[in-house]
């Protein structure tokens, strides 16, 4: 199970900046984006439990959820595979003359893949309405950024494709939202793709089984102080949008929603064995 601990601001920030008919092809730490797109805790937990009521009906698990009707492309484990796909979605918008945008991204490790480069290049050549981001959480599983690339800022990669690259504080939801809004506006105006590097830190292991002993403790301590949720609460507090009691109330409401979702998921049926044979081929195509 891949979590978003310490990286919550990224998905919440960019997904909030999009319009309803825009499309996202999220990274596997973007649970917030699914929630904003209307995936309920019940559906999500059913997916994780392999239940028939999950978005993939038990055919796939974990964060591999998608729904064309909600403009969400299902994640593929092969990192950066969805970047060319997102580019093609933007191509469809451009061909049809629609003012819609695609938002997609990968991690620092994913930017080593050829598909990352092929997608960035094609999108820039054709000025496609797509925004790419990098969730730079400093580790790809156990591999630190310095063994992944010889540059300090992933954003530098954008130069090679003739597109703007911007470094953004990935733990500041307002900064993520504002940078995303600018990049989306640029894409929508036909000016082409932008690359956003959201700098952050992965506070848990790669997956929940991984104690991540390879990450220096002091690094985690340092980033703990920059927790994006605390940061957002402080900001909202300063701006007068809410105080501790309000955040506590939200927390209680969310807890209830998640508990109800868990009950739904647990009570949902598992798929029957023979359902394995269903759905290899489509009978009809969809659209969005």
């Amino acid at each position, binding site marked *: 199970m891949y979590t978003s601990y310490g990286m919550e601001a990224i998905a919440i920030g960019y997904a909030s900046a999009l319009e309803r008919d825009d499309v996202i092809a999220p990274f596997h730490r973007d649970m917030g984006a699914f929630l904003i797109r209307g995936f309920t805790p019940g559906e999500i937990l059913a997916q994780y439990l392999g239940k028939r009521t999950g978005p993939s009906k038990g055919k796939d698990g974990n964060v591999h959820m998608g729904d064309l009707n909600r403009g969400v492309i299902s994640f593929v484990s*092969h990192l950066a595979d969805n970047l060319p796909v997102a580019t093609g979605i933007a191509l469809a918008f451009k061909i049809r003359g629609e003012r819609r945008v695609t938002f997609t991204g990968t991690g620092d490790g994913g930017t080593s893949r050829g598909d990352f480069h*092929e997608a960035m290049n094609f999108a820039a050549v054709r000025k496609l309405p797509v925004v790419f981001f990098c969730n730079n959480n400093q580790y790809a599983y156990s591999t630190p950024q310095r063994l992944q690339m010889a540059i300090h800022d992933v954003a530098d990669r954008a130069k090679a494709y003739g597109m703007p690259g911007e470094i953004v504080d990935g733990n500041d939801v307002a900064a993520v939202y504002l940078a995303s809004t600018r990049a989306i506006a640029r894409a929508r105006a036909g000016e082409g793709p932008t690359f956003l590097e959201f700098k952050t830190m992965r506070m848990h292991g790669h997956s929940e089984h991984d104690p991540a002993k390879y990450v220096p403790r002091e690094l985690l301590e340092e980033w703990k102080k920059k927790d994006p949720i605390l940061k957002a609460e402080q900001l909202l507090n300063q701006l007068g949008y809410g105080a501790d009691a309000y955040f506590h109330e939200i927390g209680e409401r969310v807890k209830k929603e998640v508990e109800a979702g868990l009950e739904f998921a647990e009570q949902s049926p598992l798929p029957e064995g023979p359902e394995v044979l269903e759905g290899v081929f489509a009978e009809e195509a969809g659209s969005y």
Partner: protein
Amino acid sequence: MTTETVQRQQEVTYLEAISQALDEEMTRDERVFLMGEDIGAYGGAFKITEGFLQKYGEWRVLDTPLAESGFVGAAIGAALMGLRPVVEMQFADFISCAFDQITEVAAKNHYRWGAAVPMVIRAPFGGGVHGGPFHSECPEGWFFHSPGLKIVAPSTPYDAKGLLKAAIRDPNPVLYFEHKFLYRRIKAVLPSEDYIVPIGKADVKRAGNDISVITYSAMVHLALEAAQVLAKEDIDMEVVDLRTLIPLDKETIYGSVRKTSKAILLHEDNKTGGIGAEIAALLAEECFDYLDGPILRIAPPDTPVPFSTPLEEYFHPKTSDIVSAARKLAAY
């Protein structure tokens, strides 16, 4: 592109049949568009899309960067949004660069989350053209093993046109293997009206009672030549052209072998793990009681496709190989 009206009353080549199918589908359905390397101003390495750029414009005849994985992935995205991309691999050999997008993304997509990928990848394949190890491959075997893809490989202009139209109208990713050796070598008069050749239907190209040769693409013509030689020896060979590799038309395959009781599997892809191996296993499972002799395979050796003429000639199956195999089987 020559004018359609004149062309339709005349014989058209296999290559022209492919070009016609693309042109007609693009006219019929504005969602259909083309992507690939050098397909625009240049008209494609084999000139399949010559004149298309002028007719349909640069957003429907899209020259791509040299990045097969990137543009196949892009085709998947466009297909998800409701368009009908037809991707050209300059040579089928280069499809290996897009292997991941095809097998992991396109093939699994509908199964994983119910989103169909109506996309065609055209792949000029096959040898006999002195193309060497990187311009002669028959890579269909790699994809034959990946659930979620449909695979077709026509042998005639009629099938080439009809199968390409069917592939474009299919809601799934379809790999369309077109044989380079056949491009300008075979011709036929095609129907003037719109038609498709349904995916999943084999075609008996020559009916016979004694031995079934099960094959596809360019090898069909080799089998038909061998059948003529064997006819003089009173060996009546049936030639089953699979046309579609996935989904396999098992009914036609089994029907033929149950009638003749003898089977030769012939293909241009190398032997080990090829399509012939799978069909041989199916026949052993489903037609064992009907068989009067061993199931034989004729296929190239397990080597890359070589360049030099004597090497390539040695590599490829020949009419005489089929004749010898048939004689051997006739003795049972």
